[in-house]
């Protein structure tokens, strides 16, 4: 029997790994532990954490969303375009949220009602939204109007606390994580969503509307991707439709997997996803210092591979110990 290991002890293990990773990075490169560097780590952990949280809902129900990066790009381009069209921030945010819900609904309906594979549906989304982002941006870089810098300070950068940078986006991500954890652990809908991920057939016998819940997971994912699109734009102040957000879905999935999510579904602890996202951000930053930015994909790939092998080995060891006991 696999993965009977409680999520609790797994999360603690991931936390321990994160601490070790931080110390190792600091030992390899003292600049890594500087205030600016740690601030950057937390900012990226916050930005990528938002999409990692989103995709973990879909992964939990046994699906996958490959369209996140393109959706981030589309929303990042759309936001300044809508502002230029004369909308205020609230209206533009509402439009983006509405579109995100629609995209998630579309993914979910295609997957549950037409029985298409999530991989395929969202792969098509990846291309379609990227195309729309290029069209919407008109081939030009879309720039955040400078009168919106307050939003950047409020939502992404934040204020230093006692001289240490505490990016607002990191706090925002933590807030979302708390809400997600409460939802998954304490509400009826959340428990049913988890049950659907664990064993969809058994969930159907319990009278749980599994299709609706799987659709809900896609909606949550797209909604958070839309929010992340705006946050990423606020951070970098401009977005080019053809490249902005490229392959971000993979970084999000990486964070979720490092946080203990199994792509087979049924396994996801919110705390783990948060820790996983921080780890991804740390590795990016450390590689930047130690080896140069061009090495980051290579290192993160090796890092995740080592992580999943260790997870598998640990699970087997636990199972063997249980048999002996």
């Amino acid at each position, binding site marked *: 029997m696999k993965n009977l290991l409680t999520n609790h002890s797994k999360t603690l293990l991931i936390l321990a790994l994160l601490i070790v990773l931080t110390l190792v990075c600091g030992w390899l490169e003292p600049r890594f532990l500087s205030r600016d560097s740690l601030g950057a780590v937390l900012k990226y952990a916050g930005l990528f954490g938002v999409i990692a949280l989103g995709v973990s809902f879909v992964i939990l129900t046994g699906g996958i969303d490959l369209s996140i990066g393109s959706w981030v790009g589309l929303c990042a381009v759309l936001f300044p375009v809508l502002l230029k069209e004369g909308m205020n921030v609230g209206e533009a945010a509402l439009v983006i949220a509405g579109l995100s819900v629609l995209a998630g609904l579309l993914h979910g309906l295609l997957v549950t009602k037409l029985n298409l594979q999530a991989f395929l549906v969202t792969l098509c989304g990846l291309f379609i939204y990227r195309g729309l982002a290029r069209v919407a941006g008109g081939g030009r870089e879309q720039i955040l109007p400078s009168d919106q810098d307050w939003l950047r300070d409020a939502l992404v950068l934040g204020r230093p606390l006692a001289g240490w940078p505490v990016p607002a986006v990191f706090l925002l991500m933590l807030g979302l994580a708390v809400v997600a954890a409460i939802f998954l652990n304490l509400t009826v809908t959340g428990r049913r969503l988890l049950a659907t991920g664990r064993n969809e057939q058994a969930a159907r*016998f319990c009278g749980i509307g599994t299709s609706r819940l799987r659709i809900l997971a896609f909606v949550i994912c797209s909604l958070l991707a839309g929010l992340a699109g705006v946050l990423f734009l606020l951070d970098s102040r401009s977005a080019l439709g053809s490249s902005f957000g490229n392959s971000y879905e993979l970084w999000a999935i990486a964070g979720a997997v490092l946080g203990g999510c199994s792509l087979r579904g049924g396994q996801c602890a919110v705390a783990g996803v948060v820790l996983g996202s921080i780890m991804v951000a740390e590795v990016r930053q450390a590689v930047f210092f130690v080896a140069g930015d061009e090495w980051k994909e290579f290192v993160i790939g090796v890092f995740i591979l080592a992580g999943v092998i260790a997870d598998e080995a640990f699970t087997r060891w636990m199972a063997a110990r249980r048999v002996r006991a």
Partner: protein
Amino acid sequence: MTAAAADIPLLEARGLSKRFPGVQALAEVSAAFHAGEVVAVLGENGAGKSTLMKALAGVHPPDAGEIRWEGNPVRIPGVAQAEALGIAFIHQELNLCENLTVAENVFLGREPRFAGCLVDRRTMKQRTLTLLDRVGLTVSPDTEVERLSIGQRQLVEIARALARDAKLVIMDEPTSSLTARESARLFEVVHDLKSRGLGVVFISHRLAEVMAVADRVMVLKDGRNSGSLTKYEMSPERMVQLMVGRELDPSRRRPMEVIPGPVRLEVAQLRTRAWPDEAVSFSVRAGEIVGMAGLVGAGRTELARVVAGVDRGLSGSVKVDGIPLRPGRVAGALQAGVALAPEDRKEQGLFLEMSIRENIALPGLGGQQRFGFVRQAQVTAQAEQMRGLLGIRTTHLEKPAGLLSGGNQQKVVLAKWLALNPKLFLLDEPTRGVDVGAKAEIYQVIESLAASGAAVLMISSDLEEILRLSDRVLVMHEGRLAGEVAREDLSEEAVMHLATGTNAV
């Protein structure tokens, strides 16, 4: 049949035993199969027929006992060794690659080659053509298997066995999904194999076809040899007698004191996808335990699934207390008080990694919320209550359900739906793979549920269980209700005759 072949059996098994967790599937079974002989293996569900065949074909090697091949002791630890000896095993669910061609399937794993590594397609096709001719299949070797009917695929499997120079062909319920004509075709081929000196062993539930085809029947009961009949000794009555013939201690039967209440469940002209041509009607009254017997595949589970809203029926209606249920809605059925405890507890009944407490809570979670939040105290109290009622033995309720023993897992499955206080409880194989002690406890719970006025419909392949608990028994055969046996007429033989379609009652 030559004298030598008659003396030394092709395959002989002596004292084979096989234990699976919680059940002795085979106990000291002996068997002998000769060249040029067709043997049918008979027995109730769970009598050990498939286990015996799998033991001989190396799928599940036996724990103890001796196997002899042409008189010499052999070990058959795996399928490859069985094939090397000349034993071909044809599974009930056929083992063909649907997207490969007939020729590729026939020679899968032993393709004729040239230049050492390239597949010699011409030779392969030619040899396939010869083999197809021998089994009387007139399709091109290039046909993809997915385009063939089940009957045709069966013949491809036999061609594959011939390509491997099999001397003994073992078939597990070869006709269970064939039409009458396809079955007839298959048995022509069987006859041909026999006349060429091959041995054939097949499992069947259809006594008529056994009578027509087999030279000998071998009957198993509860994992033991129950008897053997030659062609001249065979009759449906004698076969059924050997299959059942277990006397039930009358004191263990449920005392009949319940006077059934009003009609609770009324099923009218219901047709399911499994048997689209058969419409089934029956009713169950409050306070009644109705057993539903039949062979595996008779359509019982499919019926229960439609009643509980897990699947949609093709036509017909299901009424509970006179009110029609909306088809295909489990939540609606649960609301109307209809609960189904499914047969496969690991796949359908339980969330193995989730706690016992949460497993019990999930079907009724909607009724235990405040502002969308789970009322934890209430859920815990309910789980505690169920643990006491069913005697679920566990150190604590937060333990993952998958860590419990089979019997306790099954109790959790029942607790999940019992916690909803169902008005109609559908039980599908409620004690499969459960030890004797847990069985008795589960029976008590079912009886007290009925005594409290709920209607119970219990599907079971365990005749003893059916006889012990049922107020009356509905028997299904090939998708239709073959008959009903009243409590006073209940006997294993009466049920078995209806279930096997030999209405000699």
